[in-house]
């Protein structure tokens, strides 16, 4: 899914969460959104997911303008907030089934995919447990299984690495995200962990005070940077100094 943002502006009162953001994301990329707290990363993800409405500017998916009534476009993407929504009294597999059915992605073969994902995320022993009985990390893993089982073209994740998931699950997440990207799907996630962003993204999008400060591949950013080994840290230092 090709994503284009044209001069997207979003304000909350006097605060500009997104200030004339324009960017273009090609299919099959993993994009990390970076920026200090309150920079506008979550707002950008919410705008892409249709939860927040830009005050000005447009968002296009595959050259088609995105609006809430475009259910065809909404079914091609999936958003995972930092605290995923669950039916807490229902079992993990039931939650997965509800999500898959909402996306109309419960066709034949889904069960094998769900089984594989549950195994990969170490969730198989907990599959029949109600989500309410799981820890935060486990419930997030349940949401990740539902997300990857749905296999949408655009995956939007808010702070997946701050969700309490264990190293094995982080590894599984990266593997499945890479697999999805290789199939032409786009993954956009926000994070504060620069070392993860350096290793796990095709493009880095840096936002500061709602403004797009950088949107490039890591190689290009490295070419411009003085400290080649700590590109993102240098970028953040510059942002702090400029503020």
């Amino acid at each position, binding site marked *: 899914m090709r994503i284009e943002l044209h001069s997207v502006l979003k304000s909350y*009162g*006097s605060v500009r969460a997104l200030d004339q953001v324009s960017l273009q994301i090609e299919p099959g990329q993993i994009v990390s959104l970076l920026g200090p707290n309150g920079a506008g990363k*979550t707002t950008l993800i*919410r705008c892409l*997911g*249709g*939860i*927040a*409405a*830009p005050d000005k500017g447009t968002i296009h998916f595959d050259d088609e303008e995105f*609006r*809430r*009534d475009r*259910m065809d476009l*909404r*079914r091609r993407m999936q*958003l995972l*907030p*930092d*605290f995923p*929504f669950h*039916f807490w*009294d*229902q*079992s993990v*597999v*039931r939650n*997965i*089934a*509800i*999500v*898959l*059915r*909402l*996306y109309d992605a*419960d066709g034949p073969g*889904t*069960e*094998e995919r*769900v*089984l594989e994902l*549950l195994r990969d995320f170490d969730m*198989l*022993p907990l*599959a*029949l*447990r*109600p989500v*309410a*009985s799981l*820890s935060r990390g486990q419930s997030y893993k349940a949401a990740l299984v539902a997300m990857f089982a749905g296999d949408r073209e655009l995956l939007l994740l*808010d702070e997946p690495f701050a969700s309490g998931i264990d190293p094995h699950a982080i590894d599984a997440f990266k593997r499945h995200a890479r697999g999805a990207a290789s199939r032409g799907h786009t993954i956009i996630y926000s994070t504060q962990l620069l070392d993860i962003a350096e290793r796990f993204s095709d493009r880095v999008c840096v936002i500061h005070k709602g403004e797009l400060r950088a949107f490039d591949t890591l190689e290009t950013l490295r070419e411009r940077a003085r400290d080649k080994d700590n590109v993102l840290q240098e970028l953040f230092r510059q942002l702090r100094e400029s503020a």
Partner: protein
Amino acid sequence: MRKRAKAEVRRSPELRREARSVRRWRKEYSLNLLFRVGISIGVGTIAWVAGSKTQHPATALGVITLWTFFLVFIGAQRLLTTLYADSNLHALSLLPAENSTIFRWQFQKFIRGSLFSLLDLFCAFAAVAWWLQIAPIKWLALPPIVALAWVTLLALAMLSVVYLPSFPYHFVSLLGFVVALVILFARDYVGPAVLAMLDRAAPHLNVVLPTGWPISLFQLLLPEPTWLLLMLLLPAVAIILTLRHTMARLQSNYEFNEIVVDEAPDLMPEGSTEAPLPASSSPDQRSRVGLTAIEDIIRSRQFMSAPQWQGRGWFESLLWQWTTPREKTLAEFAFPDGFIITNAWKRIAKTFLVAMLTILVISYFFSFAAQMMLLLGLFISVCQVLGRVLDNGRAFQPVLCSGVNIPMYAVYPIGYRELSRLLWKYTTTQALPLLAFTLTASVVTAYLIKQPLAAGAIFGCKLAILVLGARPFAVALAFSSTTNDTSGFRLRVFALAGLIVCGGLLFFALAAGALFWPGAVSWVFCLAAVLHAYVCFRVYGWFYHRNRFDLMNFPKH
């Protein structure tokens, strides 16, 4: 320290900005405060007007009794929200604090909020005492009476929460406000009738309603008091004495840790030897479902099959046949345990029939008490019915997420129209029992107030049509309640606020015309109200689809 903090704020532009926003919040908060104080003064004024127009102190006290009775429902709802659904609870749960400490903190918050009802009582009693020009020394008796009435109110609210936690208190509050608004705006037309009815009913109300017991004690301050009224102190004190018990029950049941639930029973293969024991068994007695069994369950696609709720009754079966596969999926999302219609209506019918029979029997002996009981019975059963007919399930349940409330449906590809259609079908399936209810209620009311039964039947038919017709508007309101469509100062905010407020008022006006206008024109009003609700729904949908607002709102402070 304060000086240092102020100097620090002055130095930093960011802190200055934050301080400004906090001041804005304070301004908003003080506006709420003003509004609430205005309500207290309003209650006092109404009590004064009722007393001075009828020249009966009991009528003025009846106003206070009714208001306090209404406050019991509001108090119960507020207590439930403060203890179990307050936005602070997320933060409090992260603190190293005991459940009892959190309970105490939240309970104190509830008590602080309830101080406004104390102010209501003060204003109302002061207005009545001023009107009656009671001796200055007798004013000293007012604070104990007010305090007694207030504590009784709190005790009743707590009793309600402990013994009727799932009662639709919010509907009672909403309906009460709607009734109050209708009376306020149409006071020129219905005011005299309402006042006359209240005048006749007040002496009974003050004795029948528990909130009236401490309030009736005010009559002892009047010349030639009836000292028998002191007897009412006994049940009032009995209610107050339950406080300790209800408080202990609330505190003991206040579990705030993550609830550990056993394996969901919905996926256990039938006859499986590995099926877990009931929740009551101790943890070491419970067996776990093995990995192979779980794999088999998943491979068999058992978990993918949608819940089958059509066998629960005739209405469920009808709804099942009527809904498309997509709507069944949405139904599973909004009502994960499936629809429960038949049994719910059976319960409503039982309660309603018992109430009606009691009223009919009472009417043989005390005709006026029967009317009062009818009003009370109708009020409660109408709340139950509206709660059932206009139920939205979990679709609009807000979830706190990164500092904002996002409704459940917004994260998934669920459309405005498709969700509305499902909810409309759910309501329409209940048309038959709804019609039966409104017809019976209206005919019995007509019989008791000595009106033609046919007029009662027509009234009941119109009422059912209006409730069904209001569904699209109610759905639009449900969507609106979880968005920020009316925040900020923009043109679309005024348009949407106008649509919601004026649309709502116009609907009520048309509905009132449909119900009370004589002759065939009333049916035109009825049709106009239904059409108006649908037009409002479509207009709101236009704004919704064009991304004119966010599908989230900021939690209330």
